[in-house]
């Protein structure tokens, strides 16, 4: 009876360790961690008992050998998908989804991109160089979103180049749009960029954690 109680207490110790170590991890990642740590724990416990330790002493030693659960959690979150990343992976690229959900949005944006480039050309010919550049940059950014499926972006390098070009074009467009007034509008710029940069940061983290062979198409963009 006493042995059963002590084993249950030690299992609770392992459960509590696992609970802390898997905090914020995705469901699949949590299952993986639980399976490998339980496997490790059982071997460590068996080895301690073979070495002459009592059941409860073996349980205590096996949990203690795992170390600090918070440290393990920090390290696991750097290499395994978190619940937020798994959600993003499931939902895909929200910008692409928003555009693809209604076919008329695609056409409006495509026409807007073409119109921006054409009018940019017109303004360039009339001598309004600044306005022409703004329109060119706007047209290129919108055009890039549409051109992606037709470009060789679905390789590691291709995707990296595409994302770099998109960021440069977007920042150029913002720089041109606000011009010397940019510092005055910095609060607005930062709020807009934050909305784009945060999911981009999460996608970068997913790219780091997933092998390239498992990348869905939207992860290249």
């Amino acid at each position, binding site marked *: 009876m006493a042995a059963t109680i002590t084993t249950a207490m030690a299992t609770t110790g392992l459960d509590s360790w696992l609970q802390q170590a898997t905090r914020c991890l995705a469901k699949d990642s949590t299952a993986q961690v639980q399976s490998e740590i339980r496997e*490790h724990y059982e071997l460590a416990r068996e080895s301690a008992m073979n070495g002459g330790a009592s059941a409860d002493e073996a349980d205590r030693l096996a949990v203690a050998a795992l170390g600090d659960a918070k440290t393990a959690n920090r390290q696991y979150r750097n290499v395994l998908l978190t619940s937020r990343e798994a959600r993003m992976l499931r939902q895909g690229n929200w910008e692409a989804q928003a555009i693809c959900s209604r076919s008329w949005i695609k056409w409006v944006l495509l026409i807007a991109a073409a119109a921006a480039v054409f009018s940019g050309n017109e303004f360039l010919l009339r001598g309004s160089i600044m306005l022409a550049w703004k329109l060119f940059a706007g047209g290129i950014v919108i055009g890039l979103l549409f051109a992606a499926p037709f470009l060789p972006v679905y390789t590691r390098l291709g995707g990296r180049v595409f994302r770099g070009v998109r960021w440069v074009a977007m920042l150029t467009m913002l720089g041109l749009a606000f011009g010397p007034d940019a510092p005055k509008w910095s609060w607005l710029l930062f709020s807009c960029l934050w909305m784009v940069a945060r999911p981009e940061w999460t996608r970068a983290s997913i790219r780091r954690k997933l092998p390239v062979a498992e990348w869905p198409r939207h992860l290249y963009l």
Partner: protein
Amino acid sequence: MNFKGTLPTLILETLAHETSHGYRIAQQIKERSEGILDFKEGTLYPALHKLENEGMVESYEGMEKGRPRRYYRITKSGRGALTRDRAEWRELSRAMTTILGEA
């Protein structure tokens, strides 16, 4: 004693000798260093996953004494990284011995 950042190299070195599972890797590192190199075993698996993400090791399901185990083996790219790590370590070790040996 725990040298920060050396665990991935120690794992690769262990796996260069034989395919192994997590617990055995941990024990072999401790045994081969005669107990000097100690680390918390909970940090072994994040390091193994990182190596796997980088293509240095690969894992597969196996059986041992009728129980399923996840085994890890070193890849060609892992062997390349290990050769580089060994060379770097020899350089560092030589430099440290030169400095500390004179102190």
